């Protein structure tokens, strides 16, 4: 299954649904349930659940199905075999990570499957202009940042992972807070994120990766609801000089929908200082309802990638020219802001 890099199971299911046409409604429903269970199953598999009994059941199921199904994925058994192979590699530590700690296999098989239902069913993300990310070579995706929690970054990663025709992987640059928090830092590194600093960004870009950055940082993430879709200052424009140094095109990206997931009414500075956080959000539900208040609102999202802005036509010393940097930063910022306005005008409602 060479084309199965993007969610092998899901792909399989879709293709089958297409080929089978109308089969028993009960079976279709069953498959749907299976798909949702997939995310939890991935984690269960790591915990080395009792496999033998479960593995035998699919064998029989596959034999029964084999007659009437074309089975492009090779049936249940093939899937089980692939699952076991994955499990074997995990328990014996026989997998590879890159210098940044990016665990490609874990990201593709587990982390993306966990995020996908949120992406597809909860926020119903619509992706436009994905072809603006080049099929090969480095690119710097610059996006707006909003939503109190950085869910927009994760959704952006799923969007590139699932929709790019050349199977590109987005490597996000994250704030240092991410790498201070236990568990979060571990998952972030394994998902291919790294610290937003010039060294790491340059290293990733020079090895030809697609790098995602949200230059607004905490200013964008933790801005009050009243200022939604107003882009904040783009840091000091460091992303532009990094792109200039490596000659990577800048792909502006506008994300609509993330602003409304946690309408931030206030910011408790005292709590933020106590917890050592850049801000402490107060929404209509958080912290009043506790963890339940942290459930985001199911808004409808649109992610639009804009035309790439080339940076390879400049002289090498251009990266140290502050005027050029400010101009390019403004150009990227304006592009994202205008696209945001355009998308907002087209949007029918926040939730649909």
């Amino acid at each position, binding site marked *: *299954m060479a084309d*199965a*890099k993007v969610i*092998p*199971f899901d792909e399989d299911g879709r293709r089958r649904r297409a080929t089978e046409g109308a089969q028993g409604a009960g079976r279709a429903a069953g498959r749907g349930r*299976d798909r949702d*269970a*997939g995310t939890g*199953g*991935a984690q269960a*598999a790591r915990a080395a659940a009792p*496999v*033998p009994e*479960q*593995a*035998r*059941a*699919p*064998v029989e*199921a596959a034999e029964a199905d084999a007659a009437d199904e074309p089975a492009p994925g*090779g049936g*249940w*058994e*093939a*899937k*089980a*075999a*692939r*699952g*076991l*192979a*994955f*499990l*074997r*590699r*995990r*328990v*014996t*530590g*026989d*997998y590879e*990570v*890159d*210098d*940044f*700690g990016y*665990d490609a296999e874990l990201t*593709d*098989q587990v982390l993306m499957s966990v995020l996908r239902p949120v992406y597809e069913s909860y926020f119903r993300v619509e992706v436009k202009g994905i072809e603006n990310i080049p099929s090969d070579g480095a690119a710097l995706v610059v996006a707006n940042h909003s939503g109190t929690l950085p869910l927009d970054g994760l959704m952006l990663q799923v969007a590139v992972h699932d929709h790019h025709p050349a199977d590109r992987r987005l490597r996000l640059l994250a704030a*240092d807070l991410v*790498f201070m928090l*236990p*568990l979060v*830092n*571990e998952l972030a*590194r394994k998902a291919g994120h*790294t610290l937003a600093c010039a*060294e*790491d960004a340059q*290293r990733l870009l020079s090895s030809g990766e697609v790098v995602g950055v949200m230059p607004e940082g905490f200013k964008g993430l933790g801005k009050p609801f009243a200022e939604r879709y107003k882009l904040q200052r783009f840091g000091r424009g460091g992303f532009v000089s990094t792109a200039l140094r490596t000659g990577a095109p800048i792909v502006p990206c506008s994300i609509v929908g993330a602003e409304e997931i946690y309408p931030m009414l206030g910011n408790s500075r005292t709590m933020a200082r106590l917890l050592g956080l850049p801000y402490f959000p107060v929404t209509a539900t958080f912290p009043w309802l506790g963890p339940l208040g942290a459930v985001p609102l199911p808004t409808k999202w649109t992610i639009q990638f804009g035309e790439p802005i080339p940076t390879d036509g400049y002289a090498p010393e251009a990266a140290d020219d502050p005027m050029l940097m400010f101009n390019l930063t403004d150009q990227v910022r304006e592009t994202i802001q205008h696209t945001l306005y355009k998308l907002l005008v087209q949007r029918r409602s926040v939730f649909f």
Partner: protein
Amino acid sequence: MGKVVLVTGAARQLGGRFVRRVQRDPDVDRVIGVDVVRPVHELGDAEFVRADIRQPTISKVLVEHDVDTVVHMDVHGTPLSPRGSRTAVKETNVIGTMQLLGGCQKAPRVRRLVVKSSIGVYGSAPRDPAVFDENTPSKALPSGGFAKDVVEVEGYVRGFARRRPDVSVTVLRFAQLLGPTVDSPMGDYFSLPVLPTVLGYDPRLQFVHEDDAVEVLRLASREPARGTFSAGTFNIAGDGVLLLSQCARRLGRPTVPMLLPAIRWGGSALRSVGLTDFSPEQVRLLTHGRVVRTARMRDVLGFAPRFTTAEALADFGRALDAGLLPPERWAGAVDRVAARLDAPYEYAGEHPAEEGQHRHG
């Protein structure tokens, strides 16, 4: 007229191995090993001089033996004997280096100085870039322990290089040393039956095999080959990166995730009974990990390690007992289940894998 090489820290295993290796070089005439105690291992034809590098006698040794190459390997994180104190280690590291460099400055025949350092100089903090370059300034300088010693040692070495520009000075920053015979803090840690880890952190680690360490020290102590330079600072590490969880699984060692404060207390408790060295910088390494760039080692020094990080760990693991959860047992259990399936089962291939049976069971 061949070279005369003086090696400090010859009583350590790595020092002993280097002494034995370097005397086989054709252009090396004599090798002098120096340490405070007589080594338990063989030094071959090398002379052993029992001297404390913290004392000025070291400069007499340098002049008496007409030494022209000094390989300073007596920079360690752990005491030589289990009962040695941290204070003595720090003194040997810092005062010893100062005395040795003072002696070198007075010895006109010294032409080459090689110092064994550690990538601990970079510290380890969440604000640091993921990969350290030789020039990366550390965001949080190590506040104590071995890492701070190394920072100070390198400072004195830089000072010496300024005062004696005619001496070629090489600083080799080694990643965590591993191997079947050498004792290192990382090796001691991996030898524990159960590995305490920091809850919520999975550090990236890099290892260098002891054979490669000896080889690169030898390379640096010689006249550089054409097109390469040995003067300067170099990171020395095997290719690739392993996560601590991966190392534990490959060595068959179960892990016990502990809260950060608990591991600090537990570490000092373990240390006081002499079980292992759980120094604060070891804990920091096991929290945030450390990865270095080795392009300078390859391009400028012209050294290519034989062992990758994974191979160094595997070679170390072969000399170790099997552990409580040997990976072979896991693999066997999974293989037995897979054997019941009537489907191709390739676990080492490039095939994207997923777990089907849990969804459909």
